[in-house]
């Protein structure tokens, strides 16, 4: 773990307020000028099951999960066997537990951590209206070295609506927690505060914001975990910018509503997860053939089928890139961090509008539901202008005219002279259905060419560092890969990081440039089959040796795992 970062896990059974404690700690850390990330882990119960809040607080921006947790605080050990694998600990971990909760369970004790008892329940009982989670918050904040003021302010703000007594009791709990912490003889990590502007945002909120900034003004929604919060965040925002959201009866409807709104000229989006995406592919093919822009955000979860709805995985690469029937080139964009969800989604909207083809945004549960304190984002400018016919073009208007760059002017309902019928049947330039080979070839070429000929600029990938070794990756696990690269750099081993944001279409020349001089590259992804690796092999000509590193979810991809693989790679090179 790099200096200036501390990781904590808080866990307990339903109703104990684990998440509230985690959120307060995160926001207070933000107010204190720190950076941080919080993810949540829930049991299968709809409500009130055991839960864990997993935090990492840092002096520097941080989006990767830690390798192990420094501090683990358990209210109780309810169903710990379901959680244990998600909270790696080792001998350096300090496990704080309530003696009332019984002995340390095997999965915890086995790692041989340092332990200390904190009589949370008993202390809470001693305070009028006292709550276990507030005491825990006091303990953890003190052990993390978090200044008192911002935490008290946040607690004050949160409890205020429950009345003064609640506030007093909450602050009392914090204090007792702090005192209990002082008796443990631990020295907090010295985290330094940033004085730059920062945001507190989740990936799903960032995706929503990116959509609005990209110009999306129509959203069709069908709820699905873990994408629902994108839609729920957008719902009250859209009317404020003149847009609207419609709840659809299913994903077939939501995708087709987007087609209809977009046909009318309104940039449109829906968000879903794997099972919903599967239901949308027929309509995505229609958008390809009819050249209708639209954006579908897929917040990936464990698959296949219903899979593991609340946990992250990068298993939808294949369906996103190859899941449409027939030859149906389209855009696939993967944000590679919480903040990047803003810009990447915005970019997807503008590419989709400019290229008149559907764009998929591949996010995932870890990034989407991860809540991070990030540097104020550098927002990219984009203009989402759809090409409409010039006056000249409106005479003899041909909707699917073959042009130099493959993009044809698109008239919108209401424009005189521009009437045409969009069609998912193969068609000639006017849109009239045709089964002739020449028309088919021309339109297939056009639909491919417009994607290949577009200038995507540098934003197609993040390329960092140099060296003959590389990591090639995509999506949320980029943060872990970046941290791994940093750690190797600290050991004097240079590794280039290539995080591909534009997954489709391919960028052969750009990739060749990015990989110039690279001899071996580790291809890192979080799925079982190595879907991205096969794509790189099948669709690119890469001379560097590609070494696979992929494993499925639900455990987050940790920097240390990648460090281990990279060290192997470095050794092989030396040999």
């Amino acid at each position, binding site marked *: 773990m790099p200096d200036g970062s501390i990781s904590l896990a808080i866990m307990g059974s339903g109703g104990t307020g684990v998440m509230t404690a985690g959120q307060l700690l995160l926001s207070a850390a933000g107010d204190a000028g720190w950076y941080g990330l919080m993810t949540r882990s829930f049991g299968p119960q709809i409500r009130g099951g055991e839960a864990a809040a997993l935090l990492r607080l840092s002096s520097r921006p941080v989006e990767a999960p830690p390798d192990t947790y420094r501090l683990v605080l358990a209210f109780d050990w309810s169903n710990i066997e379901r959680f244990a694998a998600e909270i790696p600990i080792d001998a350096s971990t300090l496990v704080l537990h309530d003696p009332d909760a019984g002995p340390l369970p095997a999965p915890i004790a086995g790692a041989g951590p340092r332990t200390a008892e904190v009589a949370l329940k008993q202390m809470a009982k001693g305070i009028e209206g006292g709550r276990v989670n507030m005491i825990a918050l006091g303990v953890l904040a003190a052990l993390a070295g978090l200044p008192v003021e911002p935490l008290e302010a946040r607690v004050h703000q949160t409890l205020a609506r429950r009345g003064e007594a609640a506030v007093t009791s909450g602050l009392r709990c914090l204090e007792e927690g702090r005192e209990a912490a002082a008796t443990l003889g631990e020295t907090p990590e010295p985290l330094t*505060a940033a004085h730059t502007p920062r945001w507190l945002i989740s990936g799903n909120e960032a995706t929503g914001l990116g959509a609005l900034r990209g110009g999306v003004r129509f959203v069709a929604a069908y709820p699905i975990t873990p994408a629902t919060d994108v839609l729920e965040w957008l719902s009250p925002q859209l009317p404020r910018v003149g847009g609207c959201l419609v709840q659809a009866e299913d994903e077939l409807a939501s995708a087709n509503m987007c087609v209809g709104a977009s046909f009318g000229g309104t940039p449109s989006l829906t968000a879903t997860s794997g099972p919903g995406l599967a239901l949308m592919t027929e309509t995505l093919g229609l958008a390809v053939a009819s050249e209708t822009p639209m954006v579908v955000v897929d917040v990936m979860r464990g698959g296949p089928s219903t899979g593991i709805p609340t946990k992250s995985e990068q298993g939808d690469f294949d369906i996103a890139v190859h899941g449409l029937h027939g030859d149906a080139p389209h855009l696939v964009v993967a944000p590679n961090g919480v903040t990047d969800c803003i810009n990447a989604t915005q970019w997807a909207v503008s590419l989709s509008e400019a290229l008149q083809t559907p764009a998929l945004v591949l996010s995932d549960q870890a990034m989407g539901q991860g809540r991070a304190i990030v540097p104020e984002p550098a927002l990219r400018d984009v203009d989402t202008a759809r090409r409409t016919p010039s006056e000249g073009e409106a005479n003899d208007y041909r909707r699917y005219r073959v042009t130099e760059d493959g993009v044809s002017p698109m008239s919108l309902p209401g424009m005189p002279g521009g009437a045409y019928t969009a069609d998912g049947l193969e068609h000639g330039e006017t849109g009239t259905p045709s089964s002739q080979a020449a028309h088919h070839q021309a339109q297939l070429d056009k639909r491919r060419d417009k994607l290949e000929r577009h200038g995507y600029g540098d934003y197609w990938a993040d390329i960092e560092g140099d060296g003959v070794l590389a990591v090639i990756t995509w999506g949320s696990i980029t943060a872990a890969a970046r941290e791994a690269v940093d750690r190797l750099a600290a050991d004097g081993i240079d590794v280039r990081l290539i995080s591909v944001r534009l997954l489709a279409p391919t960028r052969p020349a750009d990739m060749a440039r990015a990989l110039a001089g690279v001899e071996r590259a580790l291809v890192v992804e979080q799925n079982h089959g190595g879907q991205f690796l096969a794509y790189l092999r099948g669709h690119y000509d890469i001379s560097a040796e590609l070494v696979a590193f992929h494993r499925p979810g639900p455990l987050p991809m940790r920097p240390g795992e990648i460090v281990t693989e990279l060290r192997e790679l470095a050794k092989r090179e030396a040999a």
Partner: protein
Amino acid sequence: MSTCEFRPKDFKSGVKPVWCPGCGDFGVLNAMTKALSGLSLAPEEVAFISGIGCSARLPAYAAVYGFHGVHGRALPVATGLAVSRPELTVLAMGGDGDGFSIGGNHFLHACRRNANLTYVVMDNAVYGMTKGQASPTTEADWEGSKLTPEGTHIPALRPLELALSAGAGFIARGFSGDPNGLAHLIAQGIEHPGFSFIQVLSPCITYRPEQMEYKKHVHEGFETTSDRRAAFAQLMDDDNFTQGLLYRSDAPPYTPDRAEAADLDRIAGQFALAAGEQ
């Protein structure tokens, strides 16, 4: 009709229909263009949205904006358009298979949602485009399909009853052999604020040649009501050939919430933390 600026033929595109000579859908196309002309609409203010089927080919034959989508999904496409561009006149259309079989769920929810659009189903009680299989409105004992050569054994769906129970606010039945009457129904449907459903008996002369007899069976009879009880009562006596506007309610059309303007920076502002003060 004296104020019309565009004649019915101005609403035709000139593309030659793929329909069999004698297909009922020709009459529906005529009725539509007549209705639009009568309403003094300009072709570019109108959008025809369809799914897949013989009947769903209709948009390309009109000089309006059209979207020929995928099978069964005309209604959500039309809903997206109508809701985001409320100033347009949006008609959805297609066949009984498209609308009641694969598209049945969207029909149900379009009836409930009541977005401002008109849905015309050209009902020939058969899948014409795929060469003659039973649709939901096909009689249980029709043995004309190779897929169900002894009949489906499933009673035919009653579209008007379904629309009424699902909450539709404008429910009518017309006949392609009566383009004037049909044009009138379509015009009323367009003028109705909200979702209008018009079932049109439109014979498939190729796979259901016996439907040429429809003209002998159709008869006037519906008395327009805005009372659901009275409407159900009429449907209990319906022989599937009663014509006219059965039911009209004045429920307000669906309009999603839209509020006053905010700028994007203000929206983004919610994420900013107070700068660290330590």
